[in-house]
């Protein structure tokens, strides 16, 4: 039954992907990309990977669509007509696809209990999570503690991406800013979205904080929480204007959050070294090693959440400020 659902969703994915490639209007492509992200989130959910599904829904269908639209507002929105054929590209992709499909013939079946990964790695993680950390969500344990180096690298990648975009677009717009045109058709002059939006923003931020701190017991964690809180602030910026959103959370604070999040993560690792353990070995942070692990994971998830939220909001404001100038 789950197999049939999964196959059905995957075939919808292929149809959407073909439609994205073939359309010439980029706005339609962005809409279809949003549908693509939703289908991926449903797929991950059916395969029982709840944390990944939450991240994909929050980041892919929410913030990424908004940022693509900001980019479209700055550039044109039709694809340039291409001359020349695509034979070489099609041939390369086809050969690689056939190679990859051939390589999957050796893969064990999905959910096979005799697969090598279920013999020694998976049972080890499941036992040791209860022994070292004493909370139920094994995914968070692997992400933050057993494979902490990978997550450290991810936070620094988010940081580098934010810096890259800010280099290209500029941190703050230059002095000769034109008078902000008061678009009389914008959302800020309609009553119903204003009322409902003001009701929802505190709940979105509250739910983001719930996801952040509940990451050890259910699907959640820093990445998802950062994306959800960023969505709440973006809703505020849509309803009240980017100026008010910048007055609420200024650019300095956003950059401080990005830098502070990355430094917090690295700082916890160094504190662990200073207290006698290895880098990112949280058991030495407190007298009781289990509480030490939980404390370490709490702090680094906070760092990840701050970094992701700050990066997404900084990129959004960079795009929106450029659009206001043009």
């Amino acid at each position: 039954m789950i197999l049939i659902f999964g196959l059905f969703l995957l075939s919808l994915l292929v149809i959407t992907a073909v439609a994205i490639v073939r359309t010439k209007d980029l706005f339609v492509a962005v809409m279809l990309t949003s549908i693509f992200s939703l289908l991926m989130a449903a797929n991950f959910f059916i395969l029982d990977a709840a944390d990944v599904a939450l991240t994909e829904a929050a980041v892919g269908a929410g913030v990424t669509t908004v940022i693509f639209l900001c980019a479209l507002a700055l550039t044109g929105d039709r694809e340039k007509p291409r001359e020349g054929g695509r034979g070489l590209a099609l041939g390369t992709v086809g050969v690689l696809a056939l190679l990859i499909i051939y390589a999957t013939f050796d893969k064990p079946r999905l959910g096979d209990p005799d697969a090598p990964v279920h013999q020694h790695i998976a049972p080890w993680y499941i036992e040791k999570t209860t022994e070292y950390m004493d909370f139920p969500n094994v995914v968070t344990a692997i992400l933050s503690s057993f494979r902490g180096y990978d997550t450290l690298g991810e936070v620094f990648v988010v940081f580098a991406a934010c810096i890259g975009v800010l280099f290209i677009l500029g941190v703050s717009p230059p002095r000769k800013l034109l008078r902000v045109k008061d678009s009389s058709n914008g959302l800020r002059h309609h009553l119903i979205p204003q009322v409902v939006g003001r009701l929802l923003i505190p709940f979105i931020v509250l739910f983001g904080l719930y996801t952040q701190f509940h990451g050890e017991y259910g699907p959640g964690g820093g990445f998802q929480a950062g994306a959800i809180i960023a969505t709440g602030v973006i809703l505020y910026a849509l309803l009240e204007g980017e100026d008010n959103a910048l007055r609420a959370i200024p650019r300095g604070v956003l950059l401080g959050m990005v830098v502070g999040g990355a430094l917090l993560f690295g700082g916890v690792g160094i504190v662990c070294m200073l207290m006698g353990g290895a880098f990112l070995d949280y058991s030495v942070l407190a007298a009781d090693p289990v509480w030490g692990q939980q404390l370490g994971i709490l702090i680094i998830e906070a760092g990840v959440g701050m970094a992701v939220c700050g990066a997404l909001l900084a990129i959004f404001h960079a795009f929106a400020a450029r659009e206001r100038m043009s």
Partner: protein
Amino acid sequence: MYVVVSVAILVTMVLALVRALKGPTVYDRVLAVNVFGTKTVLLLAVIAFLYGRPDFLDLALAYALINMVGILAVLEFFQNRSQRTPKGEDD
């Protein structure tokens, strides 16, 4: 029982996708994305019950909140676009 609901929701998602691919105006496609989003929330909630794991309802809650923000952002930017270049329908 939940299987019947899941099948119905999946069929409606296909119909919404067809509307997104076919829709003559841009607004048809935005409507299709909105319908797709709400149906995804319903599907996530129903499958969470089908699996017997009520803590997966957090995903449906997150997505219900994020769906509206996406649609409002689309409309805001589309209004700015139509203010700059007067354009009615597209292909």
